[in-house]
């Protein structure tokens, strides 16, 4: 394991709960590793498994998906969709050989700055232990010429 290696984690945070929770961790001056780069979406139900795989293929060592607690989704049931997709994605990522600690789903409310900080700390430590993913897939770009948008 490379001593100098710092994991890069992409976090998909929902605008109503987990993104505000991350904000709260910041305004509360909580200390946690700076390894997570947040990408805001309106709802955890917007998170397409394609995003997770893109992130891993493009160089991320881990991905966090965070949304509102079950029952509290700002859009009623988006987080249940996220839960189902995450469950199936985990099954498939296992087949791909991606360690399950690298992709996590967490419920973080707008008041849970502490939880956000501790999740990021835990994930960073876990993924540091696992080492860099360095996903060298097909060596080919994900977009083939005819299939670009």
């Amino acid at each position: 394991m490379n001593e100098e290696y710092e994991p890069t984690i992409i976090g998909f945070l929902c605008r109503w709960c987990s993104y505000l929770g991350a904000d709260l961790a910041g305004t509360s001056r909580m200390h946690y590793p700076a390894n997570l780069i947040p990408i805001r979406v309106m709802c955890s139900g917007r998170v397409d498994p394609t995003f997770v795989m893109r992130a891993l293929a493009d160089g991320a060592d881990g991905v966090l998906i965070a949304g509102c607690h079950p029952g509290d989704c700002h859009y009623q049931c988006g987080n249940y969709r996220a839960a189902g997709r995450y469950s199936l994605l985990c099954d498939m990522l296992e087949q791909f050989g991606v360690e399950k600690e690298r992709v996590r789903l967490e419920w973080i409310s707008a008041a849970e700055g502490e939880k956000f900080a501790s999740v990021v700390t835990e994930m960073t430590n876990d993924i540091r232990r696992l080492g860099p993913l360095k996903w060298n897939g097909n060596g080919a770009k994900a977009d083939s010429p005819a299939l670009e948008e």
Partner: protein
Amino acid sequence: MITLTVDGRETQVEEGKTVLDAARQLGIEIPTLCHYDGIEPYTACRVCIVELIGQRGRRLAPSCGYLAEEGMVVETTTPEVLEARKLIVELLLARCPHVERVRELADELGIGEPRFTTENPDERCILCGLCVRVCEEVVGAGAISFNNRGADRVVTTPFGLPSEACIACGACAEVCPTGAIRVEGDSTVPHLELDLGPPKAIHKPFAQAVPNVPVIDLESCIHAKTGNCKFCDQFCGPDAINHDMEDQFEEVEVGSIILATGFEPFDGSKLVQYGYGRLPDVISGLDFEQMSNAGGQTNGRILLHDGRTPTSVGILHCIGSRDENANEYCSRVCCMYAMKFGHLVREKTDAQVYEFYIDMRAFGKGYEEFYKRCMSEEVTFIRGKAAEVTDVAETPEERGKLIVVAEDTLLGEVRRIPVDMVVLATGLVPRGDTANVGRTFGISRSKDGFFLEQHPKLAPISTASDGLFIAGACQGPKDIPDSVAQGAAAAGAALSLAGAGVFSLEPITCSIEETVCGGCKICVSVCPYDAITFDEEKKISAVTEALCKGCGSCAAACPSGAAAQRHYGDKHIYAEIAGALMEVTSGESVT
């Protein structure tokens, strides 16, 4: 109309009215025991005796049951009447020597000790039959009745067994003139002076209620339960009581909502070491407030549970607040209200007052000055949160007292302070239904359980959703000046939305590409707002933009890529991912 003369004064009453009605109309007082407005008279107690003067001479008659007749002449205070009444009351006093009302009547009539033998000094029932009549005629349950005759007559249930017909409405206890019948409940307030008892079925919720009219509590209303009673109708002049009123559900379309749902007081019984609910003279902040109020049970006097005035009072700050075992936050208002109580006790009694505090939070206008004033009124402030309240005495001085055990941190010793009364300055907690209300309106809660504001400093009354505001204690513990300020702020914010005439929405709605959509209807099934419909003609699904809230679930669920969210499209997210990982992919630092 019937014309009759009472005590020399003429009056007119409707047919069917009694002599008692006529006398009362003239303002003439005749004492009664077994009479109750609205219940058929039984003339059992005979206390309302009057003298009727007519063609056949003078005779005594019970005025409560005697119908008025045309040309009748009535005298209510002749010597014969008073003699007769005296004997009647003396007999009643002999039967029930401890009934306060009978004793009062006896005193008024100049009766000392009765000449007759008292069989049972604890007897309170005067066999007036009011309870039987109300149960039979008004409530319609008929659970009790007279049994036996003569000297053995009693009011009881069939065979003296517990009655299944009794609906525990309490009407019998309500009408009983002597307190012979009591409803035994499960009152949790051990301090009987404060026990307000169950509210009547028809009552005003509180003196300042808006609208200021009584309401009927359908849970205890006899008519609601049995179809009988409607006693109240007899007393309502304008016939304003509507027994058939039902809850109505109205749908109102609004542009903005302000939640001002308030708080609940912390339940002191959760901290068993203070004895709330177990030791009778340990009361909460709200209990003290009720007692001290001039309109309360004690008319504002500060009393112990047995009616004595306390000689010492301990006021314990931070009960349920600033406490790892309860709530970590400070409830903000308790220091000031606890000092107010101390001040009131000093004002109303000579009792010594001890205030056990952690810090004094006298933050507002005039608050610090009030603190100084309390000190000058000889309220003793002990810096140390009370650890427990016990009634187990360790020294003779502590016997019969409540002992507050606290570490006095300025002295550096543990002190035991015996007091007569302990007031717990209980804190403010979120209402029990906060989670459900939050879900209904889509508001999150902060860590302390109160509603989450948009920004603790810059937007305390806004929430994450536009048009939804919070004000007052539901956002966090606060006192009246702050609650008023927030209320005004929320009202202003809501009005400015309404005044604008238009409102802006984020353009993050979803759309479905017609040329790709195959009409699988997966998106229709997934949308939480039914914002996607299937076009039968074009055989594709389409988003109704006005209904779309922009969650993006359809975009993630669509397997053909036809459904997409504006500004949160797949390509935008891919670009963000690529940007975020630029350093990793290039191997160079971007900064």
